[in-house]
Each structure stands twice: as structure tokens, then as C-alpha cells.
């Protein structure tokens, strides 16, 4: 049995629209170990959700189209699997929790049925058994009075409770991988920590690997072992949480970290932010996608995508500043100075 539960190689996903091809995910490669929590961070539109949902082809195709790449799950290449074959993976081995619990449950179906139908689809159990199991699942997802909840509809539950129902649905078959796509973005902060606590407990007790997509660097620090930073459909940096937080080697990651508001900062100072907006994926830049917003951008950054630089211990970055030929600018970057290159607007 391999240590790796998931290995993604050169994965690219595009949307065919009337305006042209939107290259949402471009050449993403990463691996995930069994029982590990990997956090994917990056601003909206960086391709995090599209990438993870395309692993088992959850996006309607057309318009979504997987252009290339391999998805090796539990030793098997599932990238060529069709709908029928993927049914043996979805819900059973890879489960999903989505961002908005208000819309990800069917408003016209009782909670009970929404939990049991996954069980009935995969395990050969009777309705009574499935029902009993569902009550158990709801309880282990932290829902009080699960018997009563079974007969209720989603609109009768609060947002936090609905997200717990989503968790119960996701862990029904004890999956080896849980993809939690911003599971707490739509919830308030106290509920957020409870939900994350539940996910972490399940990760420990079931040995389930987790891909946690989030905007919140605080969540990353508290939950994940490893972090992958995405920008403009590409991976720009990945590594252990400590390496990313303390030895980040990519200007984008540093900007993200700098944008986290600090309690000890001067309260009258303006909040840090990254100037500009993410690239238009209809016509992605030829070079590094972050170059137009990067303080340290050099000529080469605009024309050529940097290759991977291994910094050791699985800490990889994709930035020209790590190239030995980068010279002065790189030195300035490492010192943390601001450099505005002649070519930068």
C-alpha cells in the first residue's frame, strides 16, 4: 500500500465558453499522503474549486473540459474513468463538502433521505439499517436530536446544522479522502471553529485525508500539515505549514500572509492588500500569472513561466527570484525590501 492516497500530475481544466477557452486550471501537480490535511489557498478564481471538483468530474461537461493530466487515486489512474466507474469512487472513497450549506442541500427533500440515499447507493443495507446508520452519522457529525432532524427539511435547520448534515453525508461511507471546499466561509466564527474541530476529529479517528480549501490563513495554521498556494490556475508554492508561514519563497504567498490583519498592528494603519486583480483566464499571461501584480517582477517573469525550485523537505516554489541568475532583485526580495522594477506599472 502506497503512502500516497492521491497524486495529481499536470492537471489542466478549461471551460469552453462563447467568449473563448477559459483556462481555469493549468498544469497542476501535487500529491497527498494518507491521513494528511492539505490546505489549498489562493484568492477567488485561482482554480482551487475547479481543480478539486474535476478530480471526479463533478462539473457539468460541457462547458468544463479536462484537457490533460493524470489523477492517481489509491494507486489507480482514475482520470479516464467514466460516470459509471466514478460512482464507485464518489461518495464512497472521495467525499465532498461544499462552501454554501444553504444551497448544497436539496430544499425539497427531507434530511433523512439525503443522508440515507448515499448509503443505499453504495452499501447493501436495508432501509431500516440505513436509517439507523444515518441517525448515528448525524450524531457523530455533532447534530443534537438526530431522530427529529431526519424528518425535517433543510430550511428548518440553521447554517451550521446544515453544514453538519453535509459532513454526515460526506463521511457516510468512511471515505479515504474528504474535500472540504471552504466549509466555513458561509458560517459565523464560533460555528466555524466547531465545524473545523469536527473535521479534524474525523481526520484523526477515521484516518481520512483532507483537502481543505480556504481563504483564511488562520484556518490553515490551525488545521493543515501542508499548504499549496494557487494563483491564476497554477500552483505557485507548496510545502509544510511552517515553511510556508516562516520561509515563504514566493512574493504572492508573502503578500497573502501580509494581508492577514494583525491584532498587534497599528489600528490606524490601512489594511495590507495586493494591488490589482487576478489575471483574465481567457487570455492568461505567458509568464508567471502573478507578474503584473508583483513588486519584484523582472523582464523574464512576464514572458516565461518559472520552473519548479525545490527548497528541500517538500517545499517547492515556482518563482524566478529563486533562480541563481536573479541577482539584485532577488536579494532585495529575500531581505523583504520593496522593489519597483522599471517595467512595473
Amino acid at each position, binding site marked *: 500500500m502506497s503512502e500516497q492516497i492521491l497524486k495529481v500530475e499536470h492537471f489542466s481544466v478549461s471551460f469552453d465558453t462563447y467568449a473563448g477557452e477559459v483556462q481555469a486550471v493549468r498544469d497542476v501537480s501535487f500529491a497527498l499522503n494518507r491521513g494528511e490535511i492539505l490546505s489549498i489557498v489562493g484568492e477567488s478564481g485561482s482554480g482551487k474549486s475547479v481543480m478539486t471538483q474535476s478530480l471526479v468530474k463533478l462539473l457539468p461537461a*460541457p462547458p468544463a473540459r479536462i484537457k490533460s493530466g493524470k489523477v492517481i487515486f489509491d494507486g489507480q489512474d482514475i482520470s479516464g474513468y467514466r460516470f459509471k466507474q466514478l460512482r464507485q469512487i464518489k461518495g464512497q472513497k472521495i467525499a465532498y463538502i461544499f462552501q454554501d450549506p444553504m444551497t448544497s442541500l436539496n430544499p*425539497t427533500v427531507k434530511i433523512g433521505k439525503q443522508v440515507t440515499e448515499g448509503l443505499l447507493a453504495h452499501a447493501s443495507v436495508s432501509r431500516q439499517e440505513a436509517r439507523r446508520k444515518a441517525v448515528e452519522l448525524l450524531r457523530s457529525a455533532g447534530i443534537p436530536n438526530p431522530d427529529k432532524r431526519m424528518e425535517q427539511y433543510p430550511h428548518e435547520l440553521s447554517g451550521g446544522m446544515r453544514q453538519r448534515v453535509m459532513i454526515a*453525508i460526506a463521511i457516510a461511507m468512511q471515505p479515504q479522502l474528504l474535500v472540504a471546499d471552504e466549509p466555513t466561509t458561509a458560517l459565523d466564527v464560533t460555528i466555524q471553529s466547531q465545524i473545523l474541530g469536527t473535521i479534524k476529529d474525523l481526520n484523526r479517528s477515521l484516518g481520512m485525508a483532507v483537502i481543505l480549501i480556504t481563504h483564511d490563513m488562520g484556518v490553515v495554521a490551525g488545521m493543515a500539515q501542508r499548504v499549496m498556494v494557487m494563483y491564476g490556475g497554477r500552483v505557485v508554492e507548496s510545502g509544510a505549514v511552517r515553511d510556508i508561514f516562516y520561509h515563504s519563497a514566493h512574493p504572492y504567498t508573502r503578500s497573502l500572509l501580509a494581508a492577514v490583519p494583525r491584532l498587534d498592528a497599528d489600528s490606524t494603519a490601512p489594511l495590507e492588500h495586493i494591488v490589482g486583480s487576478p489575471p483574465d483566464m481567457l487570455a492568461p499571461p505567458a509568464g508567471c500569472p502573478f507578474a503584473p501584480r508583483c513588486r519584484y517582477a523582472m523582464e523574464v517573469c512576464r514572458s516565461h513561466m518559472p520552473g519548479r525550485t525545490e527548497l528541500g523537505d517538500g517545499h517547492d516554489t515556482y518563482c524566478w527570484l529563486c533562480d541563481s541568475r536573479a541577482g539584485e532583485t532577488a536579494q532585495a526580495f529575500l531581505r523583504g525590501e520593496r522593489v519597483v522594477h522599471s517595467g512595473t506599472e
Partner: protein
Amino acid sequence: MKLLKFILKRVVVSVIMIFCLVTISFFLVKLIPGSPFTSEKMQAGNKAAIYAYYGLDKPVYEQYFTYMKNLLHGDLGTSYKIRGVTVNEIIRTAFPYSLDLGMRAVAFALTMGLLLGIVAAYQRGKAMDTFTMIVAIIGTSVPSFIMGFFVQYLFAVKLKWFPPAEYTSFAHTVLPTFALGLGMLATIAKYTRTSMLEVISSDYVKTADAKGLSKFRIIVGHQLRNALMPIITLLGPMIASVITGTFVVENVFAIPGLGRHYVTSVQGLDYTLITGLTIFFAAFLVLMNLLVDIVYALIDPRIGLVE
């Protein structure tokens, strides 16, 4: 209990609505120039006798009260033009034909329309989708009198597959059902397609897919129910207008339904028949809308029955 209260409330509102409608249509028809007997050649004395016989010589308000009193007893009065026959009898003999044809047309349109709409949504941009759109365009843009004559000519006169007219056996019902149902089918298919496509990209369908459910379960268990809402709204008035009789299709296929009475009663100023049919149709429309509201509440738990 909640349902019963809701129905009761709606019935009371409906009765008031129908009362207003009766009043308005009673006076409106009297405002039309002429009288039911203007075209007939008769001596002045006879005319007066006929007017007196039907109570038309009395003041209008008195006629109104008499009419309302009779209506409360369920009596819609006597037809002026079809001598010696009451409006109740006309409806009793003609309505079963219209109802039968209407129900067949609705069943045909609903099953085929939903099926085409669903398949089209799933095959978006492919051959079945194009086919459905063509059916939808033909169904909505070709008027039923042209469609009626066309299918009659092609399948009855030329191919001789079905009898051309009358309404006595199953074979007789096929062509009128098709002619009457096609327009509805087109509308239903078009709405189903749009609404299915809307639902396909919703989050809960993605959740259902992520559970590893079969295509069938995803469609029937999660999409259809939510996609049906706009179609149910459509269906209420559609069914009401179709089963209370349609002039054109019944005329083309010589079916003794209620449809022709709508036209002939107005042409002949048959006061009682006009008002009677208006009440009948209105009652049906109100009933269908009530049913739609109840079905709504049954399908979508978020819609409470309290207004």
C-alpha cells in the same frame, strides 16, 4: 388541519370572486346591442309574449335577482336559442366529450413534454435538443386549426390510419388528442428544458452527484422535483382551458363538445348560455388554481399554506 383551513379560506375567496364575475358578465351581455330574438321574423304581439315568457320585459335588476336566486339552486336557466333545453342540460351532455378529449390531450402533452424537455436538457446542443426545439417552435407557432386540418388530411384522408371525424372509439380520439395536445406539449417541453438546465448547475445536484448516485436517481430524486415548479404554474390555467372545451379542434373533428357553444352563444346573444358557460369556465379555472397551490405546497416544503 392546516391544509383544510387553507382550502376553506380559498373556497370562500373563490365564491366571492365567482359572484363578482357572474354579476359583471350578467350586465355586460345585456349591454350588447340587440336581443336574442331580433333576427327572428315575428309579429309584435308574439315578440312581447316571448319576452314576457323569458322575463325579459322586467327591469334588468329584477332579472338579475331572479337569475341569482336560480343560480343559488344550481339552475343556470334556459337557453334562448336551443329551444326547450336548459343550460345545465347543455353542459351535462357536451362537457363529457370536452373533458375526455381534454384529459387525453393533457396526459399526452404532459408525458411527452416532460420527457422531451428532460432529454433535451441532458443532450444540450445535440440532435435530441435540436429536435425538441423544432417541435417546440412548430407546436407554439402553428395554430391548432391548421394543425387540426393538417393531421386530419394526412392521417385520415390520405393515409387512412385513423377515422377523420366523430368521437366514438379510441381510434377516433388519436388525431384530436394530438392536434389539441401539441401546443401544450411544446410549451411544457420548452419550460422543462429551461428549468432542468437551471437546476443541473445548482449546488444540491452537485452534492447528489458527489454522493455517487446513479444518473436516474439524480434526475428523478433531485432535479425533476425542483424543476417542476414553473411547469405546475403553467399547468393550472392550461388544463382548465383545454378540458372545458376548445372551439377549433372540436369543430374540425366534429366532436359534440362544449367548445362550439362558446362561440354560438355569443353570436346569438344567448344571454343565459353565455353567463352559464362563463360561470362554468371560471369555476374550473379557480379550482385548477387552487389545486396548483396545493400541489405547490406538497412539492416544496418551504411554501407554507398560510398566506
